[in-house]
């Protein structure tokens, strides 16, 4: 190691900043020790550059690396998988900055920075992150420009400008590639994070869980309608059904010995009878729309009843909902057609009937008795249901986000004592009573409502729109949906959660909800929502299907030849445009920095009233100042000498030094002239 490579000082700040900013998003997610170690390593590197510290020796570096591996292993329990892998990459990257002995190492750091930067997208995909990554990439490019410009006199800002220009000029071509390069299905399946957080509706429900979800304003999904948008009262987005009740918790369930095809059918599978009957009963679709869903980590999808889709990998379930073959790990979009069946088209299998009337063998005795009594009094299922709904509506039931805790017999305690509850309480009680009366009933979980965004003409459904309702089997009509919550708080369905809660003297979760009521904020949030929507739909959700759709619209027909031709034409066109622009820009030579500096001095003198003509030479400027402001004459003379060095003499002096001197002298002259009175030239 004869001579250490020194990153040029004009490039170093960009390099360090790029490294820091590239690791920052990862540090925010990382375990605590990394948030300490990585900045400390970078500080070390900074002090090395400043000459305060030395680069660590081989042993220290090796030790640090081993410690980093062990710490990662300790924090994540593994070294494999994206999270642990990226964490290790980030630490190794920070360590690598302490190993820049040759120009090659600096290059490696830069390429690692690109890589670390890209991995940010594994975890964050919002527009803001994307902009951030773009900015950091500009810094990375500035650093790369800097280390390729070895001269000591180079200007840091010049590197940044060129880095920025390069990235900006590359953008159009990138967009062409983004649109046109064919998307393949994954080459092999990579499960990103097996134990990732799941959001949205869960596969079971206990009292208090939905109300918890309702405190979040996170987007759940967006819906873009073709044609008419259904009115609020019809916006029931089915996700899944809960058929099993254990006295407290409702869960999704299917009997053990039924084949999967009995209740879910995926596109490329044989057609079971229930599916065939659904298919044959279809008439004209009632609603056509496209759902762009945020990642949930779950398999169920949301749609209006009764949904059909041609999306690959998405099947239809017997309980009239859509199911994905895989868990939804990234933004997912699918087109749906929903049909209305006025009569029962699918039969009720015996196992299905049994499942949907089953109740725990004991508990909630008062409710059971009440249900049986009322069912007998009513005479028909329908009349019984109507009476129940009326009862919910007339009795003093309260709709609240903060229901009191319930005793062991949850339904009894709710109906006869607390009478304060959220949708899960009402639906749970309602379904329980139906089952107690022997009517097959189940709970449907999903979302109700959604806010119409006029900008994008799409519905935005958020977590606080989470809802559960009930569906009961009526022999003539089949499964019919009832919403007991609507009976208690009709405005929930018409106007959404906020309105319904305020009807009952309650406000939804604090600050956020208050803001939501502010018209300016709501306009703003509509806009950001629209941006998010466009982002999700066109950037995150741009996949094989939407690509095919767009390409067939653009090219008429999608085949490899046409795509290749389009790529060459559009890509070439964009490159030529940029080329033309660059050539046009450089056709007229720009002013050199000293010429600009001269212009600044000229303006300064003009502002101070020094008599000058167009053709006053630098020496003439000195002479004129000597008359008008004798006190500044010396400064001007020094300035002129520096200028002469740069503009007229044989190159020799360090340009950066001259530049700094010129600026300094001009500022000093400005100060000197500000204080002094102007003397008039006798001739002037």
């Amino acid at each position, binding site marked *: 190691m004869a001579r250490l490579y020194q990153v040029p000082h004009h490039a170093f700040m960009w390099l360090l900043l790029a490294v820091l900013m590239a690791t920052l998003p990862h540090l925010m997610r990382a375990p605590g020790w990394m948030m300490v170690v990585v900045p400390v390593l970078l500080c070390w590197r900074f002090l090395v550059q400043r000459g305060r510290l030395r680069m660590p020796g081989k042993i220290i570096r090796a030790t640090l690396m081993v410690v980093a591996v062990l710490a990662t292993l300790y924090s994540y329990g593994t070294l494999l998988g994206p999270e642990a892998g990226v964490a290790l990459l980030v630490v190794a990257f920070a360590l690598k900055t302490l190993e820049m002995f040759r120009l090659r190492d600096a290059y490696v750091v830069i390429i690692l920075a690109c890589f670390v930067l890209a991995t940010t997208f594994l975890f964050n995909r919002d527009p803001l992150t994307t902009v951030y990554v773009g900015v950091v990439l500009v810094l990375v490019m500035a650093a790369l420009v800097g280390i390729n410009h070895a001269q000591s006199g180079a200007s840091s800002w010049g590197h940044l400008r060129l880095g920025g220009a390069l990235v900006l000029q590359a953008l159009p071509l990138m967009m062409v590639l983004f649109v046109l390069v064919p998307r393949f299905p994954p080459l092999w399946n990579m499960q990103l994070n097996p134990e990732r957080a799941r959001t949205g509706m869960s596969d079971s429900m206990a009292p208090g869980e939905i109300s918890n979800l309702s405190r979040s304003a996170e987007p759940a999904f967006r819906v873009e309608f073709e044609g008419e948008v259904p009115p609020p009262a019809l916006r029931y987005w089915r996700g899944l059904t809960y058929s099993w009740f254990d006295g407290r918790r409702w869960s999704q369930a299917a009997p053990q010995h039924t084949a999967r095809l009995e209740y879910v059918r995926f596109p490329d599978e044989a057609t079971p009878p229930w599916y065939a009957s659904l298919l044959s009963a279809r008439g004209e679709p009632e609603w056509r729309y496209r759902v762009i869903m945020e990642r949930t980590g779950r398999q169920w999808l949301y749609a209006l009843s009764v949904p059909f889709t041609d999306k690959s990998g998405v099947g239809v379930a017997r309980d009239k909902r859509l199911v994905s073959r895989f868990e939804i790990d990234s933004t997912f979009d699918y087109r749906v057609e929903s049909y209305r069946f006025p009569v029962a088209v699918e039969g009720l299998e015996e196992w299905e009937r049994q499942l949907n009337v089953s109740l725990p063998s004991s508990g909630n005795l008062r409710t059971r008795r009440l249900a049986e009594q009322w069912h007998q009094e009513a005479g028909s299922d329908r009349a019984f249901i109507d009476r129940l709904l009326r009862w919910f509506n007339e009795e003093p039931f309260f709709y609240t986000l903060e229901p009191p805790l319930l005793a062991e017999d949850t339904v009894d305690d709710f109906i006869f004592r607390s009478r304060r509850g959220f949708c899960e309480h009402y639906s749970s009680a309602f379904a329980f009573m139906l089952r107690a009366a022997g009517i097959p009933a189940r709970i449907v979980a999903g979302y109700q409502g959604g806010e119409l965004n006029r900008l994008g003409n799409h519905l935005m459904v958020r977590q606080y729109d989470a809802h559960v309702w009930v569906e009961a089997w009526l022999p003539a009509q089949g499964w019919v949906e009832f919403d007991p919550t609507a009976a208690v708080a009709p405005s929930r369905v018409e106007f959404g959660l906020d309105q319904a809660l305020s009807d009952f003297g309650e406000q939804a979760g604090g600050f956020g909800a208050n803001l939501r009521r502010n018209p300016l904020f709501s306009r703003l949030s509509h806009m950001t929502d629209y941006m998010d929507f466009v982002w999700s739909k066109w950037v995150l959700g741009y996949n094989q299907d939407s690509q095919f759709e767009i390409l067939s619209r653009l090219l008429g027909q999608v085949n490899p030849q046409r795509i290749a031709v389009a790529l060459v034409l559009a890509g070439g066109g964009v490159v030529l445009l940029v080329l033309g622009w660059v050539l046009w820009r450089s056709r007229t030579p720009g*002013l*050199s920095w000293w*010429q600009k500096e*001269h*212009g600044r001095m*000229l303006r300064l003198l003009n502002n101070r009233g020094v008599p000058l*003509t*167009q*053709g*006053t*030479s*630098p*020496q*003439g400027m000195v002479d004129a100042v000597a008359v008008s402001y004798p006190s500044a004459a010396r400064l001007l003379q020094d300035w002129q000498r520096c200028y*002469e060095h740069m*503009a*007229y*003499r*044989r190159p020799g002096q360090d340009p950066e030094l001259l530049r700094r001197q010129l600026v300094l002298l001009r500022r000093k002259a400005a100060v000197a002239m500000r204080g002094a009175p102007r003397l008039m030239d006798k001739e002037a």
Partner: protein
Amino acid sequence: MAVAIVRAVEAVSSVVLGKEEQIRLAVACMIARGHLLIEDLPGMGKTTLAHALAKVFSLDYRRVQFTSDMLPADILGVSVFDPERREFHLRQGPVFTQLLLADEINRATPKTQGALLEAMEERQVTLDGETRTLPEPFFVIATQNPITQAGTFPLPESQLDRFLMRISLGYPSAETERELLAGSDRRDQALSMKPVLGVAELMQSMAQVEKVHASPDLIDYIQRLMAHSRNSGLFTAGLSPRAGLGLLRAARAWALLAGNDYVTPEDVQVVLGPVTAHRLQGSAGGGPESSTRQLLESVPVVRRH
């Protein structure tokens, strides 16, 4: 080297009083390999200056008083038959010298003028089909009376272009006048001057002039001056490329005289008048001096955009 040249300027100044600026210009013109035209009324010291310059550089010089009956052969030379050897041989005219003083050049007929000016340009003479090169260095210092004088043939513009500079001496100041009256005859003084510089040294400074650095910024300034003279409408005809080259050469020489090895815009501004005034005709009337001043004032020294 520049020091020796400066000594030459000082020596000439001791004879031609109070005209330091013009003398420097004349010397600059010479080391820029240019021919010089001195224009003034009779008796202003034109000839004295020319003599002094020849002496001070120890140049081999001839003086020709131009008259209207002069023929080209009187300047260039003539082939004469040598009866003894029975062959023609060339009798060289006064042009075969290092410094030719062409006094009152505008008294000669255009034909004679043309012959001289061609020799100036080509630095060679063709007689009877035989081409002979003129000595090196070769300067012409021509003097001229203002064209309003009777019995003169004004030099055509195309030929004026061959002179690198035109200067005029003007009346002496009161003080100088007194000194002139008190002292001895200036022309005699000039003729008895001691050389200050050898021919070799003169040649060496001529070579040095070419090495004076003209930065791209400066070239750009000259180019914009040229362009402005052509496009601004200030003049009936713009400056020729030859004038541009001459301007740069003269500016280099001026810079060398100032002891610099690079040209600054001031150097250009100083020599612009002498180099261009005789090549330009102001379109709005007015003397050539005011036109060149206008040119200088309207062209920014440093590019603005």
